């Protein structure tokens, strides 16, 4: 190995790491607010990528049907629970929230599938189309069991992943897709070393989005509410924050991140109906490095995972994933070593 090769590997690793970073942020966000390890995160990213590919081949993305069906389910759940509680006055608002709102991206996507629509619109619509997915899934599946233990939530989340990837196979077929690059620019740095515009775009997106994240958490009321819920759900409720609403906000943000990841990586990797899982899993390694609570540590972990993966593929392609996932062992050992051992804290909401 010489410097050129190492440099190329580092750029490749950083580009991958940027994707894991965004995915890791989404995972940590959802986990800290709702205690759900959101395994289907990667599937949503894959759906965004495949929807974009469907637009490019002139087809109407099947994701529309999925969002519509989920919206109907969520609406039924919401109206049902309102009726049970006798709060019929709130039904019109529920219809607006769970029926009309998710239908907007569906209609947009349906319109965008006509010929002659510019690529930028396709990308925007593909992202918008998957944004309702996580909140809708959360309303139907997670909200009724919000107070269950972390383990139950994890298992449900895993089951949801298998459901989604099965639906992905049904909708998009077994073969993968690759979309046209967002940019074909190539930057030459010094001695014949080049960086493709797509890589710059990926890293740039990660930097900008994590900056936005920071600003939202530090400067806005919604961000502060999210943080408060993450720190203490009961305490947050006492000061007038509704955990259900913050949870939906978290799911919505994560879904948006997943959509952006999807359109960012679709041109550089071939996306399959099940590619999301491995992205989610590697982001999970990053999130574990951050202890599922710390955003800066998750970011560092994500970049580390990306770079290790890239070097591992150079040394031994067949063992690449083994090496990446082995990263977990020393991290977990170190974490358990450093953590102050207290009795398992009972979740306060249960009591």
């Amino acid at each position, binding site marked *: 190995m010489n410097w050129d*090769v190492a440099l*190329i*590997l580092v750029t*490749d690793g950083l580009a*991958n790491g940027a994707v894991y970073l965004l995915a890791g942020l989404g995972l940590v966000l959802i986990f800290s607010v709702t205690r759900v390890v959101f395994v289907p995160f990667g599937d949503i990213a894959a759906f965004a990528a495949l929807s974009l590919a469907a637009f490019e081949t002139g087809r109407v993305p099947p994701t529309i049907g999925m969002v519509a069906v989920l919206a109907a389910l969520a609406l039924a759940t919401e109206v049902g629970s309102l009726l049970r509680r006798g709060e019929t006055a709130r039904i019109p608002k529920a219809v607006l929230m769970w029926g009309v709102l998710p239908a907007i991206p569906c209609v947009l996507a349906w319109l965008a599938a006509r010929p002659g629509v510019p690529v930028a619109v396709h990308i925007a619509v593909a992202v918008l189309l998957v944004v309702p997915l996580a909140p809708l899934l959360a309303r139907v599946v997670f909200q009724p069991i919000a107070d269950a233990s972390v383990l139950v939530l994890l298992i449900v989340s895993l089951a949801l992943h298998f459901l989604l990837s099965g639906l992905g*196979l049904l909708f998009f*077929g*077994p*073969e*993968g*897709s*690759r979309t046209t690059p967002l940019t074909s620019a190539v930057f030459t740095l010094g001695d014949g070393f080049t960086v*493709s515009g797509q890589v710059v775009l990926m890293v740039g997106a990660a930097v900008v989005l994590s900056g936005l994240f920071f600003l939202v958490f530090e400067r806005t009321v919604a961000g502060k509410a999210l943080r408060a819920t993450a720190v203490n759900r009961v305490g947050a409720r006492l000061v007038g924050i509704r955990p259900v609403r913050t949870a939906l906000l978290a799911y919505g943000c994560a879904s948006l991140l997943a959509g952006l990841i999807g359109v960012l*990586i679709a041109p*550089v*990797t*071939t996306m*399959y109906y*099940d*590619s999301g899982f*491995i*992205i989610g899993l590697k982001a999970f390694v990053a999130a574990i490095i951050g202890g599922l609570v710390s955003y800066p540590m998750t970011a560092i972990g994500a970049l580390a995972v990306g770079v290790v993966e*890239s*070097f*591992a*593929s*150079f*040394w031994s*392609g*067949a063992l*690449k*994933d083994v090496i990446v996932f082995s990263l977990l062992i020393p991290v977990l050992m170190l974490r358990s070593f450093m953590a102050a051992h207290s009795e398992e804290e009972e979740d306060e909401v249960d009591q």
Partner: protein
Amino acid sequence: MKNLMQTLTRGALAAALTACGVASALAADLKVGLSVSLSGPNSSLGVPYAKGMQAALAYKGEVNGRKIQLVVLDDGSDPTTAGRNARKLIEDEKVDVLMGTSGVPSAIAMAQVGKEARTPMIGLTPILLDPNENPWVMTVAQPTQLMIDAVVERMKRNNVKTVGYIGFSDAWGDLVYEALNKAAPAAGIKVVSNERYARGDSSVTGQVLKIVALRPDAVMTGGAGTPGALPFLALQERGFKGGVYGQHGLINPDFVRVVGAAGQNALMPTGPVIVAEQLPADYPTKKIATDFRAVFQKVNNAPTSDAFSAYSFDGWLVFVDAASRAMKKAEPGTPEFRVALRDAIFSTKEVVGTHGVYTFKPGSLYGVDERARVIVKLDNGQWKLAP
């Protein structure tokens, strides 16, 4: 009363019809049992297999005046289901011959059931089995070595001295690597690398960097379908100037779609049916391949774009030829017929199919020779014969 009468007449009519059905089944149509992956991850191969079989049925639906009946079951890309399907086809449907399927493990599972139930099986994929252990199975697919030999021959002609290898980290990657390693030294070509990646990997930059650093004259790829496009894309990105060779696992419209411009001028072997129109007029398989194209278009209202449907067609041709000889010895639908059919298949001589000319011998799974392969070049998304 009137109602009762009606019911009774209807019942009698139905019984009579059923009896007729049974009787005609007893007068023994030939029965072919096909199990393929119509659903699941393998369905992109399984669906063309099934379509090819329908075309074959339309092309030749009877042998010596006896109608052929085709029973199709879906194995959902699962070897266990494939085995169960084979059992169902033999026990419930009493088929004379098994055919299938789109996955190698599934085909092996079917062959095992075929052996137990003493029913011949015509495989449509390469099958990895010891033919002496299971004398009831053969396949119309080309052996991997035959195809890779053609690639190595072409490399030699193109003055390749060193070749880098990158392929799947699974059985297919191993198979191609072994075949390459067997053929290359004889042609004076050195294999300089053995890089692997998983089907689901998102990037092979690391592996390709390592290959490019070794500066081989050419690169051989051992992938299949859309994931097989990854090395082509990475090699183009790294500005690799040598030739890139593939194998028959890549002959698939989805691969062409994903590889895009990075696949330009890539060379790979395939059955001649892929480029039927471009074959010289005296090529032995040209006529039947053109016929197959026509009948497929008529039956399925779409042109063929893959090699898989043609394997089904060839399996059918081999079966029809063998059945016409076996029927002189025994009555279809009986165990004796199945034995006679197997012996007839294993004495198949020079049956011209779309992929090649078939001659089966006991103790060998494969029945094709050099006529079953051509080298094609990917040119602007089209396969061009590269003589």
